[in-house]
């Protein structure tokens, strides 16, 4: 199976090209389906938390609501503001979306990478690609030629850069323990040792906070703070392009949840149940957590957000790294 979709060092034939495309399409459609039902899940969960019933009109239990919404978005007119920087306005959502899909390439759904790449520097790959999305968001905010969008775009850039650092730092503890940047190695290390959430609890806390901020989700949803900035960087976007931003956002929720489940909760490993089911359960728990936060928290203020990252989260992550190194050295020595 792995060999079937591995293509880098094979001669490029029509067959291998076909296999590449097929693999990518399968993952794409799986992810689109996952995002569709994540939206449904979010609306239902938050609805219940707010004593509402959530969507229940389209299909049984409202199961097709998200499809209806997507259809609506696709059917909408693609409006480009007159004063916008047109080429940038048009490509910005795509710039934001592509990395969000690309990062999924390193997520191991199961013990064997079926459609995804088992590369040595998977974590670095994730961090690197996710930083490109910021460019897309900023461009969208700038190109709209709308002041709310501009502020939203700048806020999100500042926020995502600030929180990428603690996010990366919080992963370092895991990397130190596993001795590898490869996600499969990290999961294997957890199977031998224990889930890293235990020895890396501090790192996990930093991770979950930084991840929430990186995802622009409540309480860190300042870039699209609807009560201040209307809709932040995507104020002017409509229809299909708006859908791209939404898609990117939810794909990142999914990706971060996968990452969290893999790095701190043993990924696909677990007793009795098959690996993919374990993975799905853990990822769903993560996603639920983000939705839960959204129903509970007010929004933090932008200056507090910055100082929280630089003055609290980053030192905490550094302390975690130092502690982990010391402990690891001590264990290895002893």
């Amino acid at each position, binding site marked *: 199976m792995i060999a079937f979709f591995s293509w880098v060092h094979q001669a490029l034939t029509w067959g291998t090209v076909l296999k590449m495309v097929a693999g990518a399409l399968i993952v794409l459609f799986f992810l689109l389906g996952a995002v569709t039902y994540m939206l449904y899940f979010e609306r239902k969960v*938050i609805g219940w938390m*707010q*004593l509402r019933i959530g969507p229940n009109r389209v299909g049984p239990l409202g199961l097709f609501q998200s499809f209806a919404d997507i259809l609506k978005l696709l059917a909408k007119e693609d409006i480009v503001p007159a004063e916008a920087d047109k080429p940038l306005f048009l490509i910005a959502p795509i710039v934001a979306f592509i990395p969000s899909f690309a990062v999924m390439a390193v997520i191991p759904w199961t013990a064997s990478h079926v459609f995804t790449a088992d590369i040595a520097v998977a974590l670095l790959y994730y961090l690197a690609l996710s930083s490109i999305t910021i460019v897309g968001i900023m461009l969208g905010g700038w190109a709209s030629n709308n*002041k709310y969008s501009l502020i939203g775009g700048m806020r999100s850039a500042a926020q995502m850069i600030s929180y990428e650092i603690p996010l990366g730092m919080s992963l370092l503890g895991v990397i130190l323990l596993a001795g590898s940047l490869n996600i499969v190695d990290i999961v294997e290390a957890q199977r031998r040792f224990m889930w890293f959430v235990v020895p890396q609890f501090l790192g996990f806390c930093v991770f979950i906070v930084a991840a929430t901020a990186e995802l622009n989700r409540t309480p860190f949803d*300042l870039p699209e703070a*609807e009560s*201040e900035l209307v809709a932040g960087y995507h104020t002017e976007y409509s229809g299909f392009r708006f859908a791209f931003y939404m898609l990117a956002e939810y794909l990142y929720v999914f990706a971060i949840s996968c990452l969290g489940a893999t790095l701190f909760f043993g990924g696909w490993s677990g007793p009795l149940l098959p690996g993919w089911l374990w993975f799905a359960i853990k990822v769903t728990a993560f996603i639920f957590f983000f939705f839960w936060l959204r129903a509970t*928290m*007010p*929004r933090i203020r932008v200056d507090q957000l910055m100082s929280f990252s630089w003055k609290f989260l980053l030192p905490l992550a550094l302390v975690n790294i130092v502690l982990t190194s010391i402990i690891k050295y001590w264990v290895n020595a002893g």
Partner: protein
Amino acid sequence: MADIRTEEMLMNVGPQHPSTHGVLRVVVKLDGETIIDADPVIGYLHRGTEKLAEDLQYNQIIPYTDRMDYLAAMLNNYALVHAVEEAMDLEIPERAEYLRVIVMELNRIASHLLFIGTYLLDLGAMSPFLYVFQDRERIVQMFNEICGARLTYNYMRIGGVKWDAPPGWIDKVKAFVPHVRKTMGMLDDLVTGNEIFLNRVKGIGAYDADTAIAHSLSGINLRCTGLKWDLRRNRPYSIYDRFDFDIPVGENGDCYDRYILHLKEMEQSLRIVEQACDQIPDGPVMGKAPKFVRPPAGEYFSAIEGARGELGVYFVSDGKDKPYRLKFRRPSFLNLQLLPSLLKGQNMANLIAILGAVDIVLGEVDC
């Protein structure tokens, strides 16, 4: 290095903006996200109520008052009928006065609930908005039962109230009171101790009592500075002197105090409602008011404690059945005056926190 400057930006917050609570426009001059200057622009909802009233009989003006502070229309109704009754020395049946107090305090609760919901929504917390709407909905339903309208009640008349409470209504109100207490407890648990919320509102938009008095602020905007000024106590009207309730005041005059005072005032309103429901006598609900209300010629000013502050009515009568001049002293209008000076030097996020805490209703600001 010196000629690299950040760009100043002129930004229209509103009139279509989710957090201006209506058609308010605030023209802000921004440096980055810091507000250098702010200028509220109002008048988008100006309907000329005062001009219209000059061609209306006194009882016909009452529906127009509903549209001013549409979140607390009962209080507006009362402000007008109270002013006219004062001018004419009318006597109101006991039961009518009790019904008035009950609906006014319920309306104050509904209005405060809505404030809490929308304020937290402004601050990014979504759920409290839906929680408070459940309780508000029950109040609105009760109003629907007593006067047939959910928002614009047109319930009071000069000389009494239009309808008596339907059977069992008073009991329903009584049963409702503990329910609100439960909601308030929940809000307290969910929000009041939340670190993020506290960081957003504590010490934000603070001013002292002298500033508040100088700018003619009233209601919670004045009481948050620690000044005990509530017309229900300081200048008792209606039958408020029969009830046992406190005037909660703040300490620091910041947004947090304003938020928490809304919660505390709801508790006091609940106490009044409880007592009024216990004491309410039987009897007619409409006094012997003349068909054509003709206050003696002269000028009159009276004020009540509205949901947002002092709701005053000034009118000049020429002895006819229509006012020669009618002027409402709208609390939101005056409370909004302090906004520009509060906003200077703050950032965009604080704009929302400060504006939200002023608790304006644009229907009233513009009148």
